[in-house]
């Protein structure tokens, strides 16, 4: 289990994380989302044991991560910008990490070579960006970690490779209860793989829920009201727009409950539509003043 408690971090007076609480259950696939500059990467770097917290705690299975070799040898971290030594080949890098991770699985590394068809004799730095990312995944998955931290992981991977990578990760989650924390802006993709979602904003957690709860707690309705009727009082409306008589409203609450309340004013037409993660992201953040604007430049 991954947990942070009241985690704070400032850089040169800029407060990157403020009293951040995160909870990722074991075996969860946790999608970390948020606008640019929300502090996602800073959080991940704390979880990987790279940053020292200013205050607060960073715990994995109840143990602090920073300078804790035992805990860190069970965490694999794939950053956005991957580091490889100059001139090092995939094999060199593999041997380097093999020395650091006691659970390293050489067999697995060999097998994964069939999926990731990369040149093993050329320096990794000379390979394309996508290939470098593939090499990182191949090594990370071979380390058989209990926790995998991924920062913008599939950036630069082609569609086939994305699917391969997610397929392997999902099978690890099913089989070994691996915990995965992934930050991404590709919400469409997160929706498939995640069961928990945390939305960060300005260094703190805006909402943290299971994907089910998140999707069951907000609903989009298309309706036509009878002339002269207003919406019932007390609905928490996050967004409202209309085209002619047809109104579209975004309401917080369970679909059945909202529909029931709307039914009381007997609308001419009413249909509820589930929201996808991207819409939830936009509407939840809209409440905090961060929103999509109609800009014409």
């Amino acid at each position, binding site marked *: 289990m991954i947990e942070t408690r009241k985690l704070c971090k400032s850089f040169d007076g800029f407060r990157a994380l403020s009293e951040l609480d995160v909870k990722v259950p074991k075996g969860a696939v946790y999608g970390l989302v948020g606008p640019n500059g929300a502090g996602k990467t800073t959080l991940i770097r704390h979880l990987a044991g790279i940053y020292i917290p200013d205050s607060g705690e960073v715990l994995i299975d109840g143990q602090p991560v920073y300078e804790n070799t035992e805990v860190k040898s069970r965490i694999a971290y794939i950053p956005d910008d991957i580091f490889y030594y100059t001139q090092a080949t995939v094999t060199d890098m593999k041997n380097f990490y093999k020395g650091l991770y006691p659970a390293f699985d050489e067999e697995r590394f060999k097998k994964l070579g069939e999926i990731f068809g990369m040149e093993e004799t050329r320096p990794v730095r000379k390979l394309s960006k996508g290939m470098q990312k593939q090499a990182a995944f191949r090594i990370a998955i071979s380390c058989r970690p209990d926790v995998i931290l991924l920062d913008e992981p599939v950036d630069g991977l082609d569609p086939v490779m994305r699917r391969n990578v997610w*397929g392997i990760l*999902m*099978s690890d*989650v*099913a089989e070994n209860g691996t915990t995965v924390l992934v930050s991404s802006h590709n919400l469409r993709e997160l929706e498939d793989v995640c*069961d928990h979602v945390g939305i960060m904003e300005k260094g703190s957690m805006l909402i943290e829920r299971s994907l089910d709860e998140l999707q069951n707690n907000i609903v989009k309705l298309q309706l036509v009201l009878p002339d002269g009727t207003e919406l019932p009082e007390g609905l928490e409306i996050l967004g409202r727009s209309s085209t002619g008589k047809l109104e579209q409203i975004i309401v917080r609450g369970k679909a059945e409950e909202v529909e029931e309340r709307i039914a009381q004013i007997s609308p001419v037409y009413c249909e509820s539509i589930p929201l996808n993660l991207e819409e939830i992201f936009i509407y939840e953040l809209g409440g905090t003043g961060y929103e999509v604007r109609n800009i014409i430049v």
Partner: protein
Amino acid sequence: MININYRDRRPIFEQVKDGFRNLIISGVLKEGERMPSVRDLASQLAINPNTIQRAYRELEIDGYICTVPGKGSFVSQRDEAAEKRRAELRAKMSEIARELRHAGIGEEELITLIRKEYDHD
């Protein structure tokens, strides 16, 4: 064998559930046949294993499959499941018929429509 359609508004677990239900009802998956393991399916479709678990759980509640601990999930006897589905479809049919009536489609026209479907076979 199951397809996830990203343009589909249904949540993924429902797509998985409906997909298997159709395979069972149509007889593609036979009685007693073993369902793919959660792990294989998660890896194959690249979706969260908990999502598949949930779809399986609901299929089990609805009587389409049964789970033997340590062995996996199997397609259960079809009669009961198929009867349940028939009831569901009948209810749906009544709903559609009601809507058509409101939309001003006459009884004769509706019967002609239905007859057409049956004549196909």
